[in-house]
């Protein structure tokens, strides 16, 4: 186990969220999609945890389960020392002011029939925050923080570009003065030149307001830039977790190694051999036995097909992989040396790319 972050604001333990698969006339339960299947992490106050993974790995469901926008099947989530699980109805609603979410699609997440003022004010009214004048003050401040003029309040979402809408969505979250924000692919729908604007804004806001983020994205370089710590998810599980720079420079899990190598880079100096994984991600309704990655892993051995790898950690670097655990032991816990061996082994075993 890794040591919890100092002064953790968010602590998630053994989180599971399963969705039933129902078939037939009686909608009988014939199975379940194990979208999140035993995920634990903590995020220190003012810190950002980046959650990366490919579609269907469960990263979005983690974000929603943490806020109880979907009901977790098992596990605990506590925010600022408050266990969220027993909270119901009004108590949960009151608590929600302190934790907000920004979604990927700024076209779908803002109600087109409401103007920006109504969009921002709705939460304030629900939470009984301030009188009309006080609300106006908060809304103006929130817009100002996100770089939007106060005159935007009279306008409707369709009058804004994607980047501006995302600023409005961020302002809607900020107006309630939350401590914790779940950012679910906040830049994925935006153009490259706008992505940088929104990333700068998110980093500024965190520093100015002392916010804590769970930053969910499939974009490794964005996560690497924004997050202090990065967790890599595969089929409902975290397979590796480390400080951002450690994960980038010394990845231990074969999946992380392949993922990092697959990101196309414009940097001619950084050109490395692409490790091409074969096959597709298996269905989370029927995850493979043993290590879930073994069906695509270039270095899988017999043990990987049978035994689910437990967590191995060196300092604040945690990995679930039999092979990496063995190399770490051989290297006497020197993660850098083990990472080098893992990179070479994975590259040697992966099918040779054609160029």
């Amino acid at each position, binding site marked *: 186990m890794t040591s919890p972050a100092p002064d953790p604001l968010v602590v998630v333990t053994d989180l599971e969220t399963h969705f039933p698969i129902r078939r037939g006339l009686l909608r009988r339960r014939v199975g379940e999609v194990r979208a999140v299947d035993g995920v634990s992490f903590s995020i220190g106050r003012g810190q950002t945890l980046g959650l990366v993974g490919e579609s269907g790995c469960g990263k979005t469901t983690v974000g929603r389960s943490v806020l109880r926008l979907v009901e977790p099947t098992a596990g605990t989530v506590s925010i600022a020392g408050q266990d969220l699980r027993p909270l119901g109805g009004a108590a949960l609603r009151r608590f929600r002011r302190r934790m907000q979410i920004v979604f990927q699609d700024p076209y779908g997440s803002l109600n087109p029939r409401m103007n920006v003022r109504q969009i921002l004010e709705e939460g304030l009214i629900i939470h009984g925050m301030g009188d009309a004048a006080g609300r106006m003050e908060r809304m103006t401040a929130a817009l100002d923080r996100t770089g939007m003029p106060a005159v935007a309040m009279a306008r409707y979402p369709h009058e804004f570009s994607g980047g501006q809408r995302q600023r409005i969505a961020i302002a809607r979250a900020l107006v309630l003065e939350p401590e914790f924000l779940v950012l679910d692919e906040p830049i994925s729908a935006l153009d490259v030149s706008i992505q940088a604007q929104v990333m700068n804004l998110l980093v500024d806001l965190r520093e100015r307001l002392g916010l804590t983020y769970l930053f969910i994205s499939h974009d490794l370089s964005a996560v690497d830039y924004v997050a202090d710590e990065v967790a890599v998810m595969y089929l409902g599980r975290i397979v590796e977790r480390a400080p951002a720079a450690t994960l980038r420079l010394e990845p231990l899990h074969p999946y992380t190694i392949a993922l990092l190598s697959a990101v196309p880079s414009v940097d001619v100096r950084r050109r490395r051999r692409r490790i091409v994984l074969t096959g*597709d991600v298996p269905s989370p309704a029927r995850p493979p036995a043993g290590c879930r990655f073994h069906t695509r892993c270039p270095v899988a051995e017999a043990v990987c097909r049978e035994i689910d790898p437990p967590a191995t950690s060196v300092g604040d670097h945690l990995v679930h992989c039999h092979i990496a655990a063995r190399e770490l032991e051989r290297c006497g816990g020197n993660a850098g040396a083990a990472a080098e061996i893992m990179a070479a082994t994975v590259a040697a075993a992966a099918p040779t790319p054609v160029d």
Partner: protein
Amino acid sequence: MPLLDISNLVTAFHTPAGRVPAVDGVSLSIDRGKTLGLVGESGCGKSVTAMSILRLVSAPGVIESGSILLDGPGGPVDLVSLPEPQLRKVRGGRIGMIFQEPMTSLNPVFTVGDQVAEAVLLHQGCSREAARARALEMLRLVRLADPERRLDEYPHQLSGGMRQRVMIAMALACEPDLVVADEPTTALDVTIQAQILDLLADLRRRLGTAILLITHDLGVVAETCDEVAVMYAGRIVERAPAEKLFRRPLHPYTIGLLAARPDPDAMATRADGTTVRPRLTTIPGMVPSPQHFPPGCRFHPRCGYAHGRPGPDGPACDGGVPELRELEPGHFVRCHYAGSLGEPHAVGALST
């Protein structure tokens, strides 16, 4: 002559709000067996350029002028003026197409085998059996797992990566000279994207097919293309061999796009474990809408190097439209000041 030679293409949409020139004087050429990357942000006109090549621009869009010459055994033909029956032989025959969303581009009610075989039947006029055999061969070529079984499956039974392989099989079934691939990997995860890019590179080498790769992802272009054209607001602003463009971009827009990505080398960890994050360079403002293209250089309102007044070195950036100049051999730039940009200033304050 090059395989495809586009010159001064203008494609405009005639909407109730007025004429919208989505592609405004684009010239491009692709040599046999080469890959040209056409990059730009949403709304820059890159997809309309692709659609114009295939003459698939739908009303109210019209190709207003320019020529698109496709070289062939009987000499070049101009796709802009080619009669529809002959054009239909080119589409899917000499030019294959791959689109971004394989789920919507494949027909959900026909099997994979039928769809790949249809292309062969239409263009090569062979028997059903021969077409089916060719379809199977194509599915093997694109390294689709278990091709015999997939032949009789429907698109919804395949994953996104598998569907994109089927699209590629269809595009290549008639051994086209050119494949137009419009964001072929944008809807895919990075590990699947790596598979598809690898496959395209391999097929290009083995079959000698030229590829026009349209994407917003500069990384994809850097790793797959021989040459790159950067589009902004309906025009090509920079064109160069990939190596040159990424080593030394010359247009302020290209420079901005490349600088907007986080650079891991610039990040450091402080002694207390916190991270030093240099602010990302941004391109202020947003892409102009084609109804309101700015005068002169269309990038000038967002450009940190723009000149407000004509000087000894060149004209004002909001005045004359810059020509696409060959600044270095093979490296073309549409900017009055490229090569001698000087120091950037605050945007909106045009320097004098």
